[in-house]
C-alpha cells in the first residue's frame, strides 16, 4: 500500500483543538517549557484547552496553580528568568486584571530594565470576548491595556490555523505575550478547517486579507472578523466591494497591509469589540491618519463596543456590541461620503 493511501483523510478541526495541538507540539519540542494556570492539570482547563497535557507531561511541567493570577504570572516570570518558557493560562481574560502589575511592571519591562540581559518567553493566554451572555466578567476584550504597556506582544487569532500557528510563534518569540483567544470561536463548527501539516508557524506582525475588495477596507481581529465578512456579503448586494483585513497581531502591527489596501479602497472602517475610548480601533485610525492621510477619501470610522461594560441580558449585550447591521450601515454611509 502506498503512503498516500495510508494517510488519514484530512480532518477539519476547531479553534480549541488547534490551540491544544500547539501546546502539545511545543511541550514536546521544548523540554524547558511549562504550563501553569488554574484547573489546567487535573481538570484539563475550564474549556479543555489543556486536556490530556498533564497526563502526558506530568504534574511538574503542567502545574495546577492556586487562584492567584498575579502569582501565576510572577512565578512564570521567575521560571523564565531561570531558563524556562512558560504558558500561563488565565481562566478568563477578564481575570487578568488580578495579575496586572506582574504583567505590565514585572514581565513587560524585564528586557528593557536589564538592557537585554534577560528575556521573558512567557505567553499569558486565555479566553476572551463577548456575544455569549458571559456578562461583565466573562466577556471582556481588554487588549488595549497591554498594547499600552511597552514590551508585550499582543495577539488575537480568528481562525483555527492561526490559533495554532500564532500560539507556536508566540511561545518561540522570546518576548512576553498576551494572547487573546476568542471563546465563542473555540468550538464553532462553521470555522473548523484542516490544519496545515508539520511545524506550522504564523509569524507575529503579519496581517491576513480574508476577503479582497475595492471600495472599502474593514480592519478587524478576533470574532469581529466574521461580522466584517458577513457585512461584506451583505454589501455585495448593494454593489459595494469590501476588503477584510484580519490584523491577527496588534503588537507588532502590520501597517503595510492596511496602507496597501487603503491605496485601493480609500475608505476605512475599524471594527473591534472593546470599548471605543482609547481602544485599539482608535490606534489604527490614528496611524492611518498620521501616515496615510492622503489615502483617505472619507472620514475613518470606528465600530466598537459602546463605552459600557458588557451587560448580561441578550438584547442589552447585542445593543452595546458591534454587529453586521452596524457595519453595513456605516459602510454604506462611508462609501457615499
Amino acid at each position: 500500500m502506498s503512503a498516500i493511501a495510508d494517510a488519514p483523510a484530512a480532518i477539519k478541526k476547531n479553534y480549541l483543538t488547534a490551540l491544544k495541538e500547539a501546546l502539545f507540539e511545543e511541550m514536546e519540542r521544548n523540554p524547558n517549557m511549562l504550563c501553569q494556570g488554574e484547573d489546567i492539570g487535573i481538570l484539563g482547563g475550564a474549556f479543555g484547552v489543556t486536556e490530556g497535557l498533564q497526563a502526558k507531561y506530568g504534574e511538574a511541567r503542567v502545574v495546577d496553580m492556586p487562584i492567584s493570577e498575579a502569582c501565576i504570572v510572577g512565578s512564570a516570570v521567575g521560571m523564565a528568568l531561570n531558563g524556562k518558557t512558560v504558558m500561563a493560562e488565565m481562566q478568563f481574560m477578564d481575570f487578568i486584571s488580578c495579575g496586572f502589575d506582574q504583567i505590565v511592571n514585572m514581565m513587560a519591562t524585564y528586557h528593557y530594565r536589564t538592557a537585554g540581559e534577560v528575556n521573558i518567553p512567557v505567553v499569558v493566554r486565555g479566553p476572551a470576548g463577548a456575544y455569549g451572555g458571559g456578562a461583565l466578567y466573562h466577556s471582556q476584550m481588554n487588549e488595549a491595556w497591554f498594547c499600552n504597556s511597552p514590551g508585550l506582544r499582543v495577539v488575537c487569532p480568528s481562525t483555527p490555523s492561526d490559533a495554532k500557528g500564532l500560539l507556536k510563534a508566540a511561545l518561540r518569540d522570546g518576548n512576553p505575550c498576551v494572547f487573546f483567544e476568542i471563546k465563542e470561536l473555540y468550538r464553532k463548527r462553521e470555522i473548523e478547517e484542516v490544519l496545515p501539516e508539520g511545524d506550522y508557524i504564523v509569524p507575529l506582525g503579519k496581517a491576513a486579507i480574508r476577503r479582497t475588495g475595492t471600495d472599502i477596507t474593514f480592519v478587524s481581529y478576533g470574532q469581529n472578523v466574521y461580522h466584517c465578512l458577513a457585512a461584506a456579503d451583505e454589501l455585495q448586494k448593494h454593489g459595494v466591494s469590501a476588503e477584510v483585513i484580519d490584523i491577527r497581531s496588534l503588537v507588532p502591527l502590520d501597517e503595510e497591509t492596511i496602507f496597501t489596501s487603503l491605496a485601493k479602497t480609500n475608505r476605512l472602517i475599524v471594527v473591534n469589540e472593546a470599548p471605543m475610548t482609547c481602544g485599539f480601533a482608535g490606534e489604527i485610525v490614528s496611524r492611518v491618519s498620521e501616515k496615510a492621510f492622503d489615502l483617505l477619501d472619507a472620514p475613518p470610522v470606528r465600530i466598537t463596543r459602546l463605552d459600557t461594560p458588557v451587560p448580561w441580558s441578550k438584547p442589552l449585550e447585542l445593543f452595546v456590541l458591534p454587529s453586521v447591521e452596524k457595519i453595513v450601515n456605516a459602510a454604506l454611509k462611508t462609501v457615499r461620503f
Partner: protein
Amino acid sequence: MSQSTGAATAEKAHVVIEPNLASRPQDLLTPEDRLEIFRQLYLARYFDVRLIKEKRRGKLRGTLYSSHNQEAVLVGSLFGLKPNDWISPIHRDMPAFFLKDMRGGWRRSDRMGMSIEEVCAQVWGKIDSPGRARDNWSHIGSRAKHIIHSTSMLAGTIPVAAGVVYADRLDGGDAVALTFNGEGSTAQGIFHEAINYAAVRKLPMVTIIENNQWAYGTPVHLEVPTADVADRARGFGIPGFIADGQDVFDVYDKVMQAIEYARSGQGPSIVECKTFRAYGHGDHDDDRANKYRSPEEVEHGRARDPIAVCRKRLIELGILTGEEASLYQAEGKNAVEATDEDFPKEVVQYLNEGIDFALASDIPSAEEGAMWVFKENA
C-alpha cells in the same frame, strides 16, 4: 479533638524564637568568619555614609534609601548563602548587591555577586551599570549572578523568586531564594499569593522581613494586625522565625535555620528581623520623618547599633582584643559626623575604587532610551 490537633500543628509550625544554644549555626563560624562579618558591617555602613555625603554634595540623582542601622540584616542573612543561591533585594538593600557571595574574598573574579564597580556605576547612573542606568538605584540585578531585579512594587519580586527556585528544582538544583521585604509590603496581596504558592509547592524560598517599624510614614501597627510580623507564617503553615535585627549573629542563626529548612525540601519560611529605620523613608523624607517620629523613638530605635553589638560580641569571644578592639568607631555616628578614619582602610579603599570607576564611566547615549523594549528576532 480536631481543634487541639490544629493548635498543635500551628505551634509546631511556628518555630521557636530562641534556638537551642548547643546547635546554633553561628557556633560553627570561625574567628576569621566573625571578623569578616564585622568588616562587612563596616563596608555596608561606609557605603551608606559615603553615598549620603555624595548625595548632599549634589553628585547623585534619584532617591537614597538608607540602610543605616539595618546592616546586620543584610550581612547576617547573606553570609551563609551558597554562591548559586538567588536573592531579591529591595530599595533599602543596596549593599546586598556586592555583599552577596563576598565571604570567600571581595575581589574574587568568579564571585556570584556584583562588584563594587558595577554597583557604583549604577548609583552614578553610568553605562557600566548592570542595567545601563535604565532604572534607578536598587532596581538592578543579574541573571548571571543570581540576583533578581526588583521593581517599586516591592513584594512583587516574591513570586518571581518562587518561580526561579521552582525551575531550579525542576532541573535538579538545590538553590534557595532569599527575598527581602519590609513589614509594610507584607500587607500587599502578592505577598500572600506568592508565599501561599511557595508553601503549597514546598519551594525553597526564605522571605526576610526587615521590620524597621516604619513603612514610609505609616507605623507597623497600622500595617500588620499581629504582634509579630512573623505570625503571618501561621496562616501558611510554615515556620516564622524572629531575629534580633541588630545582632548580626542572631540574624545569621535564624536565616541559616530557614535556609537549611528550605534546602532540605521542607519548604518556605519567613524570618522577621526586628530593626529600626535610622532616617526618613528616603533622603527626601528626612525632615518630615523628624516630625512624624519622636526623638525618643528614634533614639531608642538606634540605641543598639549593629556594629557596636557585633564588636561587643567579638570582644566577649576574645576575637577582638587590646588596641584592635577600639580601632574604628563608626557606630552611633550619623553620616555627617562619620569620617573615613572611622572605617577600616580596606573598606574605604574598596569603595573608593568603585567610585573612581563610576566617575570614569560614561553616561549612556540618549538613543538607548528606545532600545531593548523587545528582544529582536532575526
